[in-house]
């Protein structure tokens, strides 16, 4: 629901649910959540595309950049503390939220 409504994948709900309620390990939760995000984003994409809200070249450019980033990110992950990364990301999302509201 959040995924389709807000254009985010749903992993924020899926991963903690899987590790917390279903006792999956972090790695399996991550992998399984991606497998669920795949059909979610497919359905969401179809609905947005029928409204003419998908700019395909832009999506492909961001997708390609994102894959490259994800491969590098997965390797870099080991060098930083997860706790510190989450703090930085938390500050970043709060700053972006404020920018979006003020816009």
């Amino acid at each position: 629901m959040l995924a389709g409504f807000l254009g985010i994948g749903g992993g924020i709900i899926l991963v903690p649910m899987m590790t917390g309620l279903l006792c999956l390990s972090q790695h399996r939760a991550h992998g399984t959540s991606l497998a669920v995000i795949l059909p979610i984003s497919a359905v969401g994409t179809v609905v947005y595309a029928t409204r003419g809200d998908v700019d395909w070249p832009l999506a492909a450019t961001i997708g390609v950049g994102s894959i490259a980033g994800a491969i590098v990110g997965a390797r870099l992950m080991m060098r930083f503390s997860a706790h510190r990364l989450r703090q930085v990301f938390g500050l970043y999302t709060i700053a972006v939220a404020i920018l979006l509201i003020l816009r």
Partner: protein
Amino acid sequence: MDILVALAIGLTAGLLSGMLGIGGGTVAVPGMVLLLGTDQHAAQGVALAAMLLTAFVGASIHYRQKNVNLRMAMWIAPAAIGFSALGAWVAGLVEPEWLTRVFAIALLAIGIRMLFFARGGKFVGIG
């Protein structure tokens, strides 16, 4: 120029997604809205389409490493698909300004959760 900005948005989204197990949407949507001036609905549509590509690559890598619980994914997927379609349909009925506000409030909640519940070294992902 825009294509470089789009690549940079994708790279940042991917980097964070690889490092934190969070997805591209939370980075890509505000990136497009703030830097490229994309309309909120279009930004969300593009984020979902881009995610399709990223999730496919990510899921296949995890699948090969046997990190996908297929049975569980199949149990969760039908409900997730239904609600995703419903959410996408409802989003179409909302004015872009209001959709941006709701998105910003969701981001704020995510940020606060990340900041104050980041203990224990336990990852929590965002699609």
